[in-house]
């Protein structure tokens, strides 16, 4: 038995992955107000669901913004390093990772071993993140998870990326009679443009992987492919890249022991 865990406590959702050799189990749930409680509870529940006794767990690596609050972990590793490792495992031979989470967005350049070569994170605001989409969805009367499934329409130009100003811009456009679907298409395009300029800032790109909760949004995904003129891969477990990376690093730790 070589059971290890990776826990990714993000601003919006908490993810956990258990690895036992090549066997794996996972769980995703909302973080709530306490990153420590969220991280503790998800691990206990995942162990229960997958039928492993707690004392067989050999190593735990924590990541995400709540990583330091999980004092029971063996190591805290940044989500940048963990996402790189996890994404490279899910999609071998990638060179670029776009991760858009609830509260930040980042672009990471990696080598074939999933090691970080360079990275770029967004500014200290919600511009272009999951939170941004959530607030816009509220303003338009949609559920955030539906945004990517709306029928495609010619996008209207949204010029503000600041969440507060973009919301007033959206309300102003609604007043002018712009359709909600055109607005959503415009928001997706605005995010994709912003992220694409981050990608270009880090130099050449060829094989791009898109992770994080926003990768579930097909509209943003499509706009990114258009902006970058490349295929952008979204792995099936796109939200789990960080937790998976953490679990893989936990395996490394176990091997070193």
């Amino acid at each position, binding site marked *: 038995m070589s059971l290890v865990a990776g826990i990714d406590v993000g601003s919006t959702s908490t993810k956990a992955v258990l690895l036992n050799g090549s066997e794996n189990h996972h769980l995703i749930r909302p973080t709530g107000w306490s990153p420590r409680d969220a991280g503790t509870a998800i691990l206990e529940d995942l162990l229960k669901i997958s039928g492993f006794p707690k004392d067989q767990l050999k190593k735990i690596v924590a990541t995400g913004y709540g990583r330091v609050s999980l004092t029971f972990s063996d190591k805290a590793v*940044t989500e*940048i390093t963990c996402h790189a490792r996890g994404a490279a495992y899910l999609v071998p031979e990638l060179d670029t990772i776009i991760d858009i989470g609830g509260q930040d967005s980042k672009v990471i350049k990696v080598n074939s071993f999933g090691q970080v070569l360079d990275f770029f*994170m967004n500014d200290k605001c919600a511009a272009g993140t999951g939170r941004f989409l959530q607030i816009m969805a509220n303003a338009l009367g949609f559920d955030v998870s539906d945004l990517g499934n709306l029928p495609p329409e010619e996008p209207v130009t949204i010029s503000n990326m600041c969440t507060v100003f973009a919301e007033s811009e959206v309300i102003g456009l609604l007043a002018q009679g712009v359709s909600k679907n055109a607005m959503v298409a415009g928001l997706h395009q605005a995010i994709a443009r912003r992220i694409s300029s981050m990608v270009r800032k880090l130099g050449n790109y060829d094989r791009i992987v898109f992770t994080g909760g926003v990768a579930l949004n097909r509209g943003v995904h499509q706009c990114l492919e258009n902006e970058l003129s490349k295929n952008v891969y979204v792995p099936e477990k796109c939200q789990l890249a960080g937790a998976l990376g953490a679990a893989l690093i936990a395996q490394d730790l176990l091997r070193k022991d």
Partner: protein
Amino acid sequence: MKVNFLESFNDIRDKNMLTLKEAKENGQKVVGFYCTYGPQELAIAAGAIPVGLCGTREEPIAAAEADLPRNLCPLIKSSYGFGKTDKCPYFHFSDIVIGETTCDGKKKMFELMRKFKKVHVMNLPQHQHQPASLEMMYEEMVRLKKVLEAELDTEITDEAIGAAINVVNRERKALKALFDLNQNKPALFSGSDLLKVSFQISFHSDREERISLLNTLINETKEKAKEGYCVGDSSTPRILLTGTPVGLGCEKVINLVEESGGLVVTMENCGSYKTLDLSVAEDSSQDKLMLLAQRYLKIPCSVMTPNTDRLTLLEKMIDDFKIDGVIDLTWQACHTYNIESYFVADLVKSKANLPFLHLETDYSNSDLETLRLRINAFLEMM
């Protein structure tokens, strides 16, 4: 972990306030300088005490924003705010302050400062290697000398300038020797200790005493090193910090690096290594003001265009200090350093093949956690 002797550097700034007050009461003059372009030698030669006024703390920024735009670099706002609120004794005691036309923000800020302080602004050339620039720099030295003579009611002799050049040269050499001790791997000083020493020593009003304090520290550290003393170990990531100036009160990036297991082994910014290898030529046959002009024009600051000497210096420092990664710090709204970061990134990533991190922030602690994440991830790359 730390060299005990460093404690003698803890309160130089505070102690020197009293010295300064006494000196003022005895009729001595004080000249405030904002920037490393200000030739302190001329103030020393005038028999005055030069003091550094560059604002490195957040406290007075809110007061400064009553007059200045918010979207301005924190260094300028802090400097102005300390003056306006009269909370900095060094500003308070200054009979005149010397500014320079380094960047747009500073030169316009000095116009506002004139409302409550005697200000002289040196007109800096922006192109170091044009012959006309040296002529201009020389004319500015002549103008500054005249202003100081008139304001301080004294005569500045060639002999006095020569002596001032000599003592300031020796001080720079001593500080450089101290910094160079950190070429040692493992390092002998943390970045926060290096900052403490270089920042505090700049407030000591006795130049000879400065040199002797530095030399004592150098000798003590060398002795301790022989007994195996070091900071960190040979696997500790060695970081070079470059970009905008850092002083006590705005050293959060250094602290974050060192809390995260790295060491800032050297700093290229002004106040640190940028100017330490630039001595004024000590040639008795030449016009002293020309010798000063030649030296000060060589400072590799981002206000110059192009500023290739900074890249040459960085490349040498990466080598000499056995650097594992470079952090380029830009204070928000400092356009010259922010844009120049493109070339620094290119040098570090493509030529030196090292990890590079560009950080843009201000003096506040509002982004401490997002900075910590970037710095942690950066150190995990090594």
